[in-house]
């Protein structure tokens, strides 16, 4: 019988490993999340990321080896960003009717998120390339990477910051909105969803979608708007500042 270690070394080096590990871990984490009545702390992305990273670190499998398989899932982020046009299209009547206030909320929220990140990070003495990677953190990861690259940040770091931001939003949004005393009617749910989509992108929107249909629709709209606005305005703004 071949040695278990040898088998592991073989399997962990094939792309099949990264792909399978990602899918199985996520499916399990999703099942636990549902079993825990979708409690924010049971977030499936949080547990998938931390358990996969822990296993890789413990077994000494390098990240590029894992990514060779996981890239097939990562690749779908591109078409998923294109697909964001679909929820926007479905809500086009609402968008046409309320585009003014939605645009104001989107710009205000996006500026508050990245402005406060830059100011705080600067006050805490973070290095410049880390700061520039923090700036696009409220935009969905693939777009945040593109923006970071354009303004002089580190794309890989920007992606990690974006994922962490999404998790913070999904984990704590519920409590923050309770502190803000938002009501539980369609107006309150709309504001919650739009805020999650704006400040916590896809991970926040996924959370909104699971909790309430109104919140989910607004989150999808906010996500799309934030992507367009941030990728248009941020490189322009930083070019003017530089």
């Amino acid at each position, binding site marked *: 019988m071949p040695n278990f270690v040898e088998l592991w070394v073989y399997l962990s080096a094939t792309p099949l490993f990264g792909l399978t590990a*990602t*899918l199985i871990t996520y499916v399990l984490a999703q099942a636990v999340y549902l079993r825990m009545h979708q409690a924010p702390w049971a977030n*499936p*992305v949080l547990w*998938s*990321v931390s358990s996969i990273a822990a296993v*890789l*670190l413990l077994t000494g499998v390098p*990240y590029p080896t*894992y*990514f060779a398989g*996981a*890239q097939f*899932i990562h690749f779908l*982020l591109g*078409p998923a*960003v*294109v*697909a*964001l*046009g*679909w929820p*926007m299209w479905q809500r086009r009547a609402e968008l046409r009717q309320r585009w003014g*206030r939605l645009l*104001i*909320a*989107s710009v*205000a*929220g*996006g500026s*508050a*998120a990245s402005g406060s*990140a830059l100011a*705080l*990070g600067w006050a*805490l003495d*973070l290095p410049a390339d*880390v700061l520039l990677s*923090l700036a696009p*953190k*409220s935009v969905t*990861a*693939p*777009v945040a990477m593109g923006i970071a690259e*354009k303004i002089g940040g580190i794309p*890989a770091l920007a992606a*990690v*910051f974006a994922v962490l931001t999404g998790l*913070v*939003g999904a984990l*704590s949004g519920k409590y923050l*909105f309770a502190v803000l005393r938002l009501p539980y009617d369609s*107006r309150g749910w709309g*504001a919650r969803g*739009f805020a999650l989509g704006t*400040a916590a992108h*896809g991970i926040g929107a996924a959370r909104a979608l699971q909790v309430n249909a109104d919140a989910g629709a607004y989150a999808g709209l906010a996500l*799309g708007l934030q992507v*367009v606005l941030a*990728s248009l305005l941020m490189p322009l703004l930083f070019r003017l500042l530089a």
Partner: protein
Amino acid sequence: MQGLRGLAWLLGLQSVGELLARGLSLPFPGPVVGMVLLLMALGWAPVAEAVAVCADFLLSHLSLLFVPVGVGVMTHLTLLSQYGGRMLLVIILSTWAGLAVTALVLFKLTSPPANNDAELR
């Protein structure tokens, strides 16, 4: 079959988006241009029918797609051990700022649905 046709549309529009973004050196990432193109194309019924199935599937599992990038956190452990606490603080506080500002601004701007007169005040 519709799902497959939808995926073909999404990938096709993403590719055209990449070409336009690179060729005209637009400030947008390719997929964002693809999204805008999709918004224009959705007026055509065959596109809408095909894309609906695929887009709903992709977007309902959106959070899975962030896992590979998220695991990349392990490659920045030295940076994290050096600045981790401060970076986390910045991320948490700025995310709350973004959430609160967006929610409050939209909430204040939206009139209560039952009272349409409020808009005239």
